[in-house]
């Protein structure tokens, strides 16, 4: 089984995790259209993406960098780690 490196629990079987959607920020001061976009729409990119993942047993959220074509998990980040990288970008 494919394994995923959880920043809190180390390598675990991927069946212990729940996919949580594309990483993006909540819209601020936005219109209903922006909200619809946030709630329903996706980039659904073929390639390298950043996503929310969740370790189900320990209720732990984190961010993973994944290749949606080759089915490889490239890196995982704690939320704090990822947000600081995002800020610097």
């Amino acid at each position, binding site marked *: *089984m*494919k394994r995923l490196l959880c920043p809190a629990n180390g390598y675990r079987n*991927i*069946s212990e995790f*729940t*996919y949580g959607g594309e990483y993006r920020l909540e819209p601020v001061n936005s219109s*209903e*259209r922006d909200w*619809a*976009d946030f*709630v*329903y*729409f*996706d*980039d*659904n*990119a*073929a390639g390298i993406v950043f996503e929310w993942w969740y370790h189900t047993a320990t209720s732990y959220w984190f961010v993973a960098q994944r290749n*949606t*074509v*080759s*089915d490889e998990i490239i890196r995982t980040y704690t939320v704090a780690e990822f947000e600081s990288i995002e800020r610097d970008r």
Partner: protein
Amino acid sequence: MPFDLIKNGLRSASARKPHFSSARDLKKHYDVVIIGAGGHGAAIAYYLAKYHGITDVAVLDKAYLGGGNTARNTAVIRSNYLTEEGIKFYRDSLSLFANLSNEFSYNVMFEQRGQLTLAHSDAAIRNFRWRAEMNSHFGVRSRLLDRAEIRELVPSLSMNESARFPIVGGLWHADGATARHDAVVWGYMRGACERGVELHQLTEVQGIDISDGAVQSVQTNRGRVGCKIAVQAVAGCSSLLAQMAGIRLPIKTFPLQAMVTQPYKPLLVPLVSSPHLHVYVQQTSRGEFVIGGGSDDYPLYNTRSTLEQKESLADGTLELFPFLAQAKILRQWAGITDMTPDYSPIMGPSPIKNYYLDAGWGTWGFKATPICGQTMAQLIATGVTPDLIRPFDLERFYRFQALDETGATAASH
């Protein structure tokens, strides 16, 4: 048809002609370019030519005719959905399916064997009662069954009360059917080609040219092709094509896996599905048991298979049909499915003028092939969205009017 068989069987050289237009150069321009030669693309081309006299049409596919999800699906055809819009749409598709072999003069092996969905909980029974009422109201045959009726209908099904999740009842859909998926796309494409439509395989659309907010042409690996109208029908690749036109879609692409056993004597007539066990099973007319289930757990543009999913399918199957424990798996495969948040498709205009969407078919789009082709062709020819598909437009998400079919779709297809 049967006479042809006798006549040609007695000849040494086959007199049969190729079914599809043979390879030739792409023209510089077509009235309509259809992206994707699956069942949906082929059906749109067929109805455009047949009912609207529009034959200056090219159907482009990056691979080969019907090699996408059309080739990979498990051919469950049913109309026992939950919303008024969904029920009416799929109901009309089923009636077109019933006449397809005559329409094409080509056997699509449509068999109306009925479909049984199993309940393993009171919550499922409540959902089934609701569906049965909605279905009956719109003329779809659908009713609740108790355990005794299920035992009579499917004697091979395990009704063991000490099973992990005992069967407590079922939703019987007498209209439920199956058909040969390849024959459906071949029939449509042959009919379209006979009327002048061109099929171009190994022709990948790599870009879409837009000016003044309207589509002008598509770029392919064989050059640029101008068009008055373009429509995308590319299933798992829907978001990628839409992005070329600058359109975002409410779609995520998930793999869906299936497998098939060695053949057995005919013993299972209806299509049987258990949403609770995430599995559905049916016996094909050549005796194999086709086994499918729910989508993979995370999005992926890859048709790889996983052992975990095969184990989960086998697990559910053996709970329903323990006699299959010794069966050998002959083949297994996956397709990439374009899942929408409400488990309903997206059909209609797009934000780009003259660019139309036939997308969001997820795990349920084979059964819609005829009606989608017919209504999309009407839309393309007239510019007016037919009432039957108006609720399924992309804008519904911005209106917050999702058509929730989750409860009537998961693991039933």
